[in-house]
């Protein structure tokens, strides 16, 4: 009895991981039972739909790509001691500027030149959006958590404004979306059986880059110093404000790149709903990975998997796809509890 109590208080790492993974699934199964679905059957179908064929796996990769980038947009500022909740708006602005550049500037350019430029414009859009929050923080002493969050709403309506107005496709029968981007400005796919495009490689490359900068460069050392103790950084002669501003701009650029990839790789045109919630899910992925730029690739894939599985659940059980968000929340809680235990 005593041994059991001890075991519960100090479980072995293997057991901890098992509980972290199985706990949420069991709790969600309970929810499914109450809603009248057969959890075992449904879990089977969800796994089948995700890992059953290349198409499913491709969907997971497509879904996870923007999550990786928006997660990085949260993780990088976190290393400098800031909380960027604005991946959502930065992605949206990236998508807007990328679409605008594709439609008005780059439509006749060859893809080899046009795609990098379009990516640059996307990153620029996100960078400017995050830069506003950065300036508000460094010049106006305003909390970046609040400003980035509020600017998400402004971004959402800004996108809507353009989709309904100057960027509206004349041939859209009054639907609010932009004209499609030219064929050569679509990201190449690497598989014939799925829609998977090369965006995942870009995302993983950016993750590697962020990881390298943070942990293996002098700049990264300074960033981590600012994040660890801003006062100590100041006393060490580090210009804390310019680091904070720079990091937020870089984070915005990464999220903006996600917006460009979404347009160029999947959506082909800008809609008011482009990338909705991707910023928040990326934020989630980042915190689940304790803001580690490589570990968050894994958590982004987990969130991507759950999202794709949610679609199949909707088709098979009649439950709305959004109910899979309950599962996502449960997974997050489990991971957070585990993280707390580790610290204690």
């Amino acid at each position, binding site marked *: 009895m005593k041994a059991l109590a001890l075991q519960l208080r100090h479980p072995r790492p293997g057991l901890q991981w098992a509980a972290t993974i199985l706990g949420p699934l069991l709790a969600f199964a309970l929810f499914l039972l109450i809603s009248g679905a057969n959890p075992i059957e449904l879990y089977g179908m969800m796994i089948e739909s995700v890992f059953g064929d290349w198409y499913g796996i491709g969907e997971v990769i497509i879904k996870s790509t923007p999550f990786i980038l928006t997660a990085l947009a949260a993780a990088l500022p976190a290393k400098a001691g800031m909380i960027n909740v604005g991946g959502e708006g930065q992605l949206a602005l990236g998508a807007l500027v990328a679409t605008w550049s594709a439609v008005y500037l780059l439509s006749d350019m060859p893809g080899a030149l046009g795609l990098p430029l379009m990516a640059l414009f996307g990153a620029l859009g996100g960078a400017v959006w995050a830069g506003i929050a950065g300036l508000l923080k460094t010049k106006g002493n305003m909390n970046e958590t609040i400003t980035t969050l509020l600017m998400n709403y402004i971004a959402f309506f800004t996108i809507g404004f353009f989709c309904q107005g100057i960027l509206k496709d004349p041939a859209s029968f009054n639907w609010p979306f932009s004209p499609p981007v030219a064929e050569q400005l679509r990201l190449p796919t690497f598989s014939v059986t799925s829609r998977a495009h090369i965006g995942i490689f870009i995302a993983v490359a950016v993750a590697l880059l962020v990881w390298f900068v943070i942990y293996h460069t002098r700049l990264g050392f300074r960033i981590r110093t600012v994040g660890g*103790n801003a006062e100590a950084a100041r006393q060490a002669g580090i210009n804390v404000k310019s680091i904070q501003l720079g990091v937020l701009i870089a984070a915005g650029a990464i999220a903006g790149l996600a917006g460009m990839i979404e347009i160029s790789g999947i959506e082909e045109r800008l809609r008011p709903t482009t990338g909705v919630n991707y910023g928040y899910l990326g934020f989630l992925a980042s915190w689940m990975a304790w803001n580690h730029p490589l570990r968050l690739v894994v958590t982004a894939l987990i969130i991507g998997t759950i999202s794709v599985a949610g679609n199949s659940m909707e088709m098979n059980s009649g439950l709305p796809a959004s109910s899979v968000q309950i599962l996502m929340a449960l997974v997050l809680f489990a991971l957070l509890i585990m993280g707390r235990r580790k610290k204690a």
Partner: protein
Amino acid sequence: MFGRGSQQMSAVKPERIPGQIVLEAKGLTIRFGSLTANDQVDLKVIAGQVHAVLGENGAGKSTLMKMLYGVYVPDEGTLSMDGKPVVLHPPAQARLHGIRMVFQDFRLVPALTVLDNIALAVATKGTRYSPKSMREEIAKVATRYRIDVNPDAYIWQLDLGQRQRVEILKALLSPDTRIVIFDEPTSVLTPHEVEAFLDMIQVLKKDGYGVLLITHKITEVMAVADCVTVLRQGKVTFSATKSEGFTESHLVETMMGAKPMPSIKRKEEVHRECLLDVKGLTVSGDHGQIVLEDVSFSLHRGEIVGVAGISGNGQRELVETLFGLRHTLTGNINLDGKDITNERPGVLLDMGMAFVSEDPVKESVIPGFTILEHMILGGLPMTPKGFGVDWGSTLRQLEESEDVRRLKLADPSRSASELSGGNIQRMVLSRALLRNPRLLLVSYPSRGLDIGTTKAVQQILSALADQGSTILLISEDLSELFELSDRLVVLANRQLLGPYHPLETDMHTIGRVMLKGESA
């Protein structure tokens, strides 16, 4: 347990009969680990009298008050009120017995008005309170004690002096208050406000309150105290009533203690070039109050200038301003003829400054970084290697340093957040010394260090100055200041006083200047 029910049940006599002993503490002892913060302390609080508790920083005054206010439970000793033994822990219990404390850092809600804050503290019965009757009561008490504060102002709008008045109102509006403890009340007040405060104390005496006044300002003690207790290193070194008599000079002596005169080697008077020149410096503190006003001084090459003063008299603000961490209101700072006023710390580091903060545990440690990683933050240069840092060469420089070896720095691969205060002190000192600075700004260098390392630090600083570096040394330890300094200055009353030459003055003179300013 300490809710409203017990409040109604507790039979506290709210009478305040002047001359009666309200609270008596006998043999109070409390230990924190190996430190005995209070050792066999006796104290009496008499209604209608002011009992002043004097002592240097760290003498154990605040600890003693916190035992009387129920924050700490004494390890030994007894507390009794009206002759009956009482338990005062937790503070809610102390308040039930009519003990109120006015803290240095105020316990007020900034987003609420004065009225609301007072109501929070006073109106404990029921869930509703009547703002109207509360307002009347505030007006009544405020007039009696001449406490001028607008009940509808928000706390965040008030300056420190006004906030203190709200705290005092909170204490006085509780009908069962018998003893009011003031923790260094005048440190936040302007001279004019101090006068008003002392007047108010006189009215409190007349009304039969027992007043405990923690302070290190002798003039205030002489003005209002009926009874004084001096603490040094946790022990009572002197205790007397007014009728038994106490004099200013005697109080200073008992506070400072009879420290052995250190041996001072007289350095030859040489003409030294000026390195740092400060003119007309005015600086404000964290709350916007002026802490240094029109201060001018200069530092010469190869000299150690000691800064004495009761802590909180602008030491922190002075060095922060010199190091570019705090902006000046007025004034000029010149280093080697170059204007460095409000220059960034990074630039000043490059010009050969080094800085040891007064609170390294809080301000110098990066959680998760090793000691080695800390060395390139304001210490050794960041040697590039590819995109990263050449840690190998950093480690070599660290290991080759004689100073670091003498300071007994811990293993460089250890994480700094796991270090004790003393080891962190070794780390920040090593870091500053590795820089081989032209100008070293160092605060409390021997804090947290054992005697042997303290000696080593003092020898290293001396040697550094002999090699031509300039050191501005801030310390609370007068014997350390006398031993090391070529010149001494004192911070008191927003002024920088001096310089004094350690050979031409003595600790008691400096101590008096610290406590009372130049008029002493």
